């Protein structure tokens, strides 16, 4: 019998929601283990954090000193490393602390004894620390994405990276445009596809949980939001939510969160 490819699922700072793309698969999860050999997946009870594997999937962002050491080891032990979701890929919603003026004081605001909290001042994506071979975007990713990625790897090819704009999928599905028709600040024009245009389907504006698309015209969309009557800080907040990015240029002049 040919040996099955080996896989590990690792977790860093996250909500565990992306692992649910596997745990909510139902019987497909059992079928999957017929095709790959899962060496480590703590949430599912398979434990061997230091196993050498063909593919390591990583959920969560780097937020502690211990994390910075663990991710190095995981990279060394894996032929391919694939990030799962916003946290691992861009730092995730907790990277909002990267925009804060005094993140070092946050532990003291919440914990009476902050000296016991091992917390870096930033939430960092995996790629800030090690080489990443492929990224699965989304908060959360869905089962289709991870199945497709594993399927491609089993065929011996890298999964296809689709950075198309959500807008295009939304138009294909024929939804009422939340931006033009309803005047809502929809992030669809600069957000990458993958969710199936869920929010417009529900009649609400996209808030960008799949991250940035190809060729994002952020400044153009930001001006458009101003035209809808949003204030500068409202526009900033719109762009800085699930994938906060201090470097993103909105061309709004002063008044950003980094002043």
């Amino acid at each position, binding site marked *: 019998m040919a040996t099955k490819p080996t896989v590990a699922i690792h*977790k*860093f*700072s*996250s*909500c*565990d*929601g*992306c692992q*649910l*793309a596997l*745990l*909510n698969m*139902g*019987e497909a*999860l*059992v079928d999957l283990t017929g095709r790959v050999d*899962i060496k480590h997946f*703590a*949430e*599912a*009870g*398979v*434990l061997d*954090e230091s196993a050498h594997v063909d593919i390591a999937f990583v959920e*969560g962002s780097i937020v*502690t000193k*211990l*994390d910075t050491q*663990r991710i190095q080891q995981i990279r060394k032990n894996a032929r391919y490393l694939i990030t799962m979701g916003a946290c691992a890929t861009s730092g*995730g*919603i*907790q990277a*909002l*602390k990267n925009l*804060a003026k005094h993140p070092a004081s*946050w*532990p003291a*605001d*919440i*914990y*009476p*004894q902050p000296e*016991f*909290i091992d*917390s870096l001042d930033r*939430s960092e994506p995996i790629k800030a620390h090690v080489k990443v071979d492929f990224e699965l975007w989304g908060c*959360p990713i*869905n089962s289709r994405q991870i199945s497709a990625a594993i399927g491609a790897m089993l065929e011996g090819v890298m999964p296809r990276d689709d950075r198309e704009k959500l807008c295009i999928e939304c138009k294909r599905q024929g939804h009422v445009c939340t931006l033009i028709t309803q005047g809502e600040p929809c992030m669809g024009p600069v957000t990458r596809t993958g*969710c199936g245009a*869920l*929010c417009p*389907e*529900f*009649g*609400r504006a996209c*808030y960008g*949980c799949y991250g940035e698309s190809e060729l994002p015209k952020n400044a153009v969309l930001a001006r458009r939001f101003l035209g809808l009557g949003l204030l500068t800080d409202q526009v900033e*907040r719109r762009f800085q*939510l*699930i994938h906060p990015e201090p470097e993103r240029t909105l061309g709004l002049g002063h008044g950003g969160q980094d002043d």
Partner: protein
Amino acid sequence: MGGKMTERRVTIDVPSLARVEGEGALHLKIEQGTLQHLQFKIYEPPRFFEKFLEGRHYSEVPDIVARICGICPVAYQVSAVNALESLFEVELTPWIKQMRRLLYCGEWIQSHSLHIHLLALPDYFHETTVLGLAAKQPDAVKRGFFIQEAGNRLIKFLGGRSVHPIGLQVGGFHKAPSLAEAAELHRYIESALPEAIAMAEWVARLDMPDEQQSFTSVALTSPHYPLETGRLKSDRGLDIGVDDYETYFTESQCPHSTALWSLLKGENYLVGPLARLNLNVNGLPPFLDRLLAKLGNPFPSQNMFHSMLARAVEICFALHEASELLRNYKVPDTPSVPVRVKAGECCGWSEAPRGLLWHRYQVDAEGIIRAAKIVPPTSQNQARIEQDLAQSLQAFGLEHSDEALRLHSEKVIRNYDPCISCATHFLRFSAERSP
């Protein structure tokens, strides 16, 4: 190991605690066969949600707080909108109230069956994973997945996806599903209910340790079983509304731990399915009264190992409730009602799958959040878990090997289904023994 017990000091390090949605460490010190010291700690690299809620618009809150936990996002969303809607004095329509309850049923079903089948059951069949269990008990696992899918479908119905659903908003929902969607879902739910009843009967027959402990159960109560609303009661006379929570409950930090401990008048207490069923066993629909009678109804129960059966019973309840709500489903004129912002402070709660989830917000006249506080179920159970471990391990027998003690500890901890979003799953188990 040889000869007599002489000076003996053992330290075991277990790199990960499997099938617990959290990162914990357990330290035991055993001297002359008695337990001298026990510490259960949760290491959860903080993600500081309470800080970055500050400065956000109230309408963003449901999408933000969902990200605290991938397994119970609905609970976070509902506790949050409950708080904000009470401040804004929003009059919800009956349809909105019913759909909130329906959405919440979905989360209980999904989370409870995930816990029973994937996290807890393998222990009882000497397996470490659901995959091993699937080889031994294929039908039970298949059934478990079928039930879990019912939960996922309920959440998708109103929220588009089962993790971080996008359908809820302050004031109602973004969209009302169609009659056809409701009818299709109703058929699935109807077919899942008998499966869940069979599952509950099967769980009731599993051989569980019989271990009575004294503890206080705390849960919302309501005449029709609490999900998204109710008054907070305990089996020792507590009876309060949402704004009084902080008068009775206090949070403190235990050294070296990142979860805050919550105490009721200085004492530990239990939240979650067992506490809920203990306090609401009289609020079940008749078919569950009959089922429980047939199973020798152990509730109210002081045996923590009845938590699994409590989850199974709650799955049956939630499927039945969902079926009733869907049977009469109508498409409303509007899925939401207008909201008028008001400044002030507000509290909200609901019964997350793992127990009471309480939120407090301070909002300014522009609708911007100025302060937030969130007390999740796991920090409420943390002190109780520690006390339980001390009692359980002594009842189990401290003379057992370190490995046996660790396995038993994990089983005890899993009864509480400690909540996720707690990071990297390190149970550092260490036992120090001297003769």
